C-alpha cells in the first residue's frame, strides 16, 4: 500500500524533474515574440507600390466582399500622377479592426494586390478608436514590414490570363 504511494510520488516527481531540465516552451512575451505560420492572417497593411505610388485605386471590391462590412472607402480623383497613376484613389480608407474576422477575403479580392494581411497579431490597444486602421496607418504598416512578408503571388496559367498584363 505505502510502496504504491511512494512509487506514484516518485513517478510524478520524475516528470517534474525531467521538465525542469528540458527546453522551456513558454515565451517571455512581449519581449520575445512568437513567429506565426506563413499562412497566418493578422493585421492588414497596404503594400507599397514599386515606384512609391499607392496601389489602392478604391475599386471597393474589398469592401464589397467583406462579410462584416468593416471596410469603408471613399474614392476621389487625384491630380498627382506619380502617387496615383490611375487617377482614382481612396480618399478615405478605414478598417474597423474590432469587427474584422481576419478571413482574408479583402486580400483575395484585391485586383491590385494593394491590401494584404500580415502575420502581426499584437493589436491590443486602449481605446476603440485606435482599432480603426486608416489609410495612413495601413501605409505606414506596409513600409515597416519587410518584403519577405509580402505575399500573394499571381498565378500563371497556360492560356493568357485576361487579368494579366
Amino acid at each position, binding site marked *: 500500500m505505502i510502496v504504491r504511494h511512494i512509487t506514484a510520488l516518485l513517478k510524478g516527481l520524475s516528470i517534474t524533474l525531467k521538465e525542469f531540465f528540458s527546453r522551456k516552451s513558454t515565451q517571455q512575451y512581449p519581449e520575445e515574440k512568437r513567429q506565426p505560420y506563413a499562412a497566418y492572417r493578422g493585421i492588414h497593411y497596404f503594400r507599397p507600390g514599386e515606384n512609391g505610388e499607392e496601389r489602392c485605386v478604391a475599386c471597393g471590391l474589398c469592401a464589397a466582399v467583406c462579410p462584416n462590412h468593416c471596410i469603408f472607402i471613399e474614392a476621389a480623383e487625384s491630380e498627382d500622377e506619380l502617387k496615383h497613376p*490611375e*487617377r482614382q484613389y481612396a480618399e478615405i480608407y478605414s478598417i474597423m479592426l474590432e469587427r474584422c474576422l481576419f478571413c482574408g477575403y479583402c486580400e483575395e479580392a484585391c485586383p491590385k494586390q494593394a491590401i494584404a494581411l500580415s502575420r502581426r497579431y499584437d493589436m491590443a490597444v486602449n481605446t476603440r478608436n485606435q482599432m480603426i486602421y486608416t489609410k495612413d496607418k495601413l501605409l505606414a504598416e506596409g513600409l515597416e514590414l519587410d518584403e519577405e512578408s509580402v505575399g500573394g503571388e499571381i498565378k500563371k496559367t497556360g492560356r493568357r490570363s*485576361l487579368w494579366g498584363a
Partner: protein
Amino acid sequence: MKLTIESKKVEIEPGATILQAAEKAGVYVPTLCHDKRLKAYGSCRMCLVEVAGSRKLLTACSTPAADGMVVSVNTERLNEIRRRLLELLLVHHPLDCPVCDASGACRLQDMTFEYGVTSGDFSDKRKDIPVVTNSPMIERNMGRCIFCGKCVRVCDEVKGVRAIGYSGRGFEGSVGTAFGVPMDCEFCGNCVASCPVGALTSKPFKNKARPFFLSEETSVCSYCGTGCRLKLDYSDPEQHSFLQGKLWRTRPDDQDELTAGSFCGRGAFGYEYVHSADRLRSPYVKRGRKQEQSDWPRALDAAADGLREVASRYGSAAVAGIISSQATNEESYLLSKLMRVGLGSGMICAPAGLGELAWREAAFEILAGLPTAAAGEITAADLLLTVESDLSESHPVLGIRVLQAARYGGARLIYASARETKLSHYAASDLRIKPGSGAVLMAYLGRCLLEKVKRRGGLKGLLGLGEFTSSVRKLTAGKTARATGISVGELTDLADQLDAAKKPLLLISHLAHETQKGSDYARAAANLAYLLARLKGCDPPVVFASEFSNSRGVLDMGGDRSLYPGGNLEEVEKIWDVKVPGATGLAAAELLEKIEAGQIKALYIAGLDPATQLLGGARWGKALRKLDFLVVQDIFATEASRAAAVVLPGVSWAEKEGSYTNFSGRVGTFKPVVKPLGLARTEWQVMMGLMERFGVAANYPDLAALRCEIEKLLPGYFSGKTRNNKPGGTLMPFVTKGLVEKPGGKYRFLMLSGNSLFQLGSYSGHSAALSERMPRPVVEMSGRDAVRLKLANDDLVEVVSRRGKLRGKLKVVEGNISGVVYVPAYVPGAAAAALLPAPDSKGRAVGCAVAVRKVR
C-alpha cells in the same frame, strides 16, 4: 403571327423583330448594341440566334420575325460564338475595371461573367488612348469603347443633336466630335446613360462611388413639368460601406413609358444641389437687426406669433402666402389649409406658375378643367403645331417625343416662332412669326376652323359662339399676315393642313418668363384646341407643358387664390369642417401692389425667391423689405431669406416623401433617399407644426393619411383617375391685349425670355455641373441686328432695361427675327426677372424693352 422561341410559343404583331418576340416570350437574348429607342443596328452580334431552316445565324435585333419560325437562343454553338465574340472584344478592352465607373453595372463585364470568359486565345496590344477630358460634364475614355454605337445613335436618332460621331477607321476608330473640339451640345447625358461600358462617363459622378454599393430608388425629376421618372442612385450607410448617405447620380428609367429611357441635362446633372454647401441647415430668427441661429420649437413659435400678431392688428387679410411651383402636392395642400383655416386668409398665390394660371383661367372658363393630352398623344399625332413654344428646350424630354414623331413617326411638325431653335431644323414648315403674334395666329386658325366645323354641323351645344365669332370676324387673313409677318398663302395653307390632318395636336408652353405671352395667348390656344376637338371628334388635342415639376399640382391643391382642392368650395368646407374665406382674387401682380401700398403686412414664402424668380423682380426685392413680418421657408439662402424675420430650412426632394403632378396629370411619388441636412426638416412636417400652433387639426401621422384626406376632395388623385375633360363649354371672345411695355426709343429691342436647358428655378444654380455649363446667360440676337451693332459671337454684352441689367455672352442666331433678343431666365447672378416689368392685373403680356451694348 405565331412563332416558337426556345420551345415557347409566342404570338406577335407583324413587323416585330425576333428580339421583341423573345422579350414577349420571356426568353433572354444577350445584347450589347440594342436599344429599344433606336433603329436596329446589329453590330455586336451577341444576339445571334439559330432559326430552323436557315443555314446562316441571324441577329435577333434586326431580323423581322416570320410566321412559324422556330428559334433557338441558347445552343452550345451560339454560346461558343458569344464566348469568342467576348474574347475578341476583350483583346483591346483595357480591363481597368477597378477604376472604371461602369464596373458593377457594365454589360460587357456581366456577359464576360455570364459566359465564363476568363482567358483568351487572341492577343494584341491593349489600347492606350488618352482620356478626352476637354468637354464639360462628359469624359470620353475611348480605350474602353466597344463600338456598339449607342451613344452616337442616341445623339442623332433620339436627340437630333449629332454632337458626337465616329472618327478614324478600324483599330484607330473612336467616338468623338468633329476635329476633336470640346463637346458643345445639350449635355443631356443620354450618351453616358446608354453606354454599356465605361467609355463615356459623367464628370460629377466619375471616380466617386461604385455602382454595386449604391441603392436604387425610383423617383421623379424635380425640375420641369414633364415629370420624368428618374432612378436615384444613393448610398445607404446601413447597407453598404459608406460613412454617409448621399445622392450620387440619377439615371433615366427605361420602364417609364413617358420617357422611354431618356432624360435631359437637368435630370442628368442637376441633382448636385441636394448636397450643395449653400443649403440652409438650421432655422434662423431675427433678433433686433440680426438673424440668429435657432431651434425648431422657438422658430415655429416665432413664426406663428408673428403671423398671428399681424393678423390680429391689421386683420387676417393683411397676411398672405406665396408657394413655389416646386413644392409637393402635400405641402401645397397643407399651406393652402394653413392659410385658409389657420390664418383665415384667402390670400395665397402660386406666382411662379403665372403662365399656367393664365392658361388655367382660360381653360376654366372654356373647358371646365385643364385639358392636356398625355405624352403618348405626341407620338400618335400626324400634325404637330407648336406656336411660340420650344419644347425641346423648355421640356427636353417632350422635345424628344416631338422630334421622334416628326422624324420617324410621319407627323408634320409646324413650328411658328420668332426664334430659330432645334425644332426649326426638323420642322416640315418653319414659320418665323413676329414675337407675341402667336395669339393672333391661333385666333385666326380658330376662325378658319370655325367655318369648317359649322359646315359639318359640329357646333351643337357650344356656348359663347356668337361672341367669339364677332370677335374674330375682322381678323382676316390679310390682317393676320400683317400681324404675324407670314404670308397669306402660308396662313391658308396652315389652316388647310389643320383641317386635313387626322390627329392634329397643339403643343403649347406658357411659362412665367415668356414675356410675349399674356392671357390672350392662353385664350386663343384654348379656343383652337376646343374647335379642333369639335372638328375631329376627340378630346381637346393640346399638350400644355407646365413649367415646373409641380406647377399643376400646386394649383390642383388649391395653392392659388380662387382655386380650392377639388375646385368645390362647399366640399372643402365640409371636409375641413370650417368656414373657408372666399376667393379674394389675389394675383401675383395685385399681391405686389398691396405689399407696396402697405395693405399686406406679413408674408409666408414657401420655396421661392421673388426677386430672382418672379416678374418684376426688382420691385419684389424692395417690397419684401417693407413687410412687417416675413417667414421664408426655402432650402437655400436667398435675397428673401436674408430679409426674413424667421427662416425655416426646408429639404430637397431627395430628402422627403411627396408627389409631383406632371403636365398631363400623372402623379409621380417619391421617397426620401438621404437624411435631411443639418437641422433641416421636411416642409410638410414644419407646416404641421405651424398648424398645431394655430389650432388647426393636423392629424396626419404620415403622408398616407394626408393623401387620404386629399383624395376625399380629389377622388383617385394619386392613382391618376381624376382627369376628366368635360365636354361642352364656352368659347371665349378673342381680344388682343398687347404688351405692358413696348420697345422703342433708347430701348429698341424686345426681350424674350424663357427656360433654358441648364438653368431652371433656383435648384440648377446650386448644381455645380449645370452652373459651370451656363455661368452667365447666353443672349441670342439675330444676324442682322448683330451686324448693325457690330457684335459677334461670344462678345460680352450688357442687356439693359428700365429696371435693371444683366451681362451675358452673345450668340448670333441668323434665323431669329430682328428686333428681338432672347435671354434665358433663372441664370444665377443674372436673373432675367430683375429686368422684367411686373405683370398687370389685366393679364397682358409683360413684354420688356431693352437696349444691348457691348462690354469692353
